[in-house]
């Protein structure tokens, strides 16, 4: 079972990963976007960590909804509402149980990713974060929520697979064919997020 501590570790790990990779994310965003993705997520996850530090342990759902709200209110841009919604909806789907089973998380994440798709109107192949998130959710579901490592691997592959895509959503879509050949920054940060999930498990 996964407790609130696990979800805190996930968020802290994600924050550390984003910090470490911020320049790379911004670099990717400068090729096909506006050169702020790293700074955006750094700001957001720093706020998440800070908010979590100020709150009592809580439940898995509470941790994620708090994190989601922090992202929405500190990131801005496209990724703020999208990642914020991902975490809030996942958190809401987890309800207020003190511990959740991995299969429950797999289900909840699927709901979160669906909410992202609905909010942003994007689908697989549009060269967005969904191209990392959806394969991750699939891989997790296939293992009945047991293999976070497989999810991380799938997210990584999904992020890599955005390179040859032509963007159809977000800023990169303005570039038309010139968006081809670059990895999507949001898909890349999504892979970091899922890797942090696997990392949180590894640390159990």
């Amino acid at each position: 079972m996964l407790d609130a501590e696990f979800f805190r570790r996930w968020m802290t790990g994600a924050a550390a990963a984003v910090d470490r990779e911020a320049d790379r994310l911004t670099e990717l965003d400068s090729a096909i976007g506006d050169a702020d993705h790293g700074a955006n997520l750094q700001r957001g996850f720093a706020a998440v960590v800070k908010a979590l530090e100020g709150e009592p342990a809580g439940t898995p759902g509470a941790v994620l909804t708090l994190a989601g709200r922090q992202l929405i209110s500190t990131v801005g841009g496209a990724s703020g509402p999208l990642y914020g919604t991902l975490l809030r909806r996942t958190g809401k789907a987890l309800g207020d149980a003190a511990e959740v089973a991995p299969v429950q998380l797999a289900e909840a994440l699927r709901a979160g990713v669906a909410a992202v798709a609905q909010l942003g109107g994007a689908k697989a192949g549009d060269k967005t974060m969904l191209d990392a998130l959806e394969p991750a959710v699939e891989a997790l579901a296939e293992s009945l929520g047991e293999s976070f490592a497989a999810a991380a691997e799938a997210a990584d592959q999904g992020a890599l697979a955005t390179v040859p895509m032509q963007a159809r959503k977000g800023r990169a879509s303005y570039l038309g064919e010139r968006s081809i050949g670059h990895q999507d920054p949001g898909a890349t940060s999504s892979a970091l997020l899922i890797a942090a999930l696997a990392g949180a498990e590894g640390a159990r």
Partner: protein
Amino acid sequence: MLINVPESVVADALRGIAAAHPELTVDVENRVVVRRDAPVAGQVALVSGGGSGHEPLHAGFVGPGMLAAACPGEVFTSPVPQQMVRAAAAVDSGRGVLFVVKNYTGDVLNFEMAAELAEDEGVQVAKVLVDDDVAVSDSTYTAGRRGTGATLFVEKIAGAAAEEGAPLERVEAIARRVNASARSFGVALSACTTPAKGSPTFDLPPGELELGIGIHGEPGRERRPMMTSREIADFAVDAVLEDLKPSGPVLVLVNGMGATPLLELYGFNAEVQRVLGERGVAVARTLVGNYVTSLDMAGCSVTLCQADEELLRLWDAPVRTAALRWGM
């Protein structure tokens, strides 16, 4: 860059705006710039906002006859919903608030969330989406056209209607009409440097330019060997006219992207006017300057807005903001 640290550029700028403009109320912490006399009884209030780095847009357009409030986000990053919620609460006189939103995924999503929250708090909110950039084809293969220079026309003209006391539906309808009547096309002669990245957002050798750029330091649709002012004017104006097909006189905005000297921009205006003349398009008013910028990018954009008598009257109406002022 003339900054302290990248993290504080927006807050620093807001403090600087507060010091220079006593006629504005600047909430530095919450990043909201409000005209000092808001809420103005009997008036619909316009609220806009977007990423910073496009100054004077939007804070420079806050004041009587234009915006009631502006919400600056981080550089090139749309503001967060709380900013717009706060702004709406500060400026609503009870007659409602119009959100002027440039069509970018981030702005759309954050303003959407803000509208829901503000309505929960009892503010009547309408939204207008500005999407004038003809360099982007508006299809299912893109996020839709970007909002660029037409934002100035929308904010000025709808702002004048609000100042006159028009109700929310009318202010909204006018804003939509301005957006529907306006198109833009932009060109970069250099990339820009964001504080966070600290180096140019893309490589553009001196002998080349980017056609069809936006206002976020992103590359355009196409790169070409350097063109003359005359050739750029032909290209940009024709791109706009092909899409707009105006049947009457137009408002012209010849806009600098930030680092193009006014000397060059006025020279470019001469070429823009020449093409318009050659194409038989009558010009009602012309505005030349750095209004919707992309930090220190060199380049320019052309926005045309077909103007009937009402729009023209509202354009000419008095306005009193940091960056656009006449009649008072």
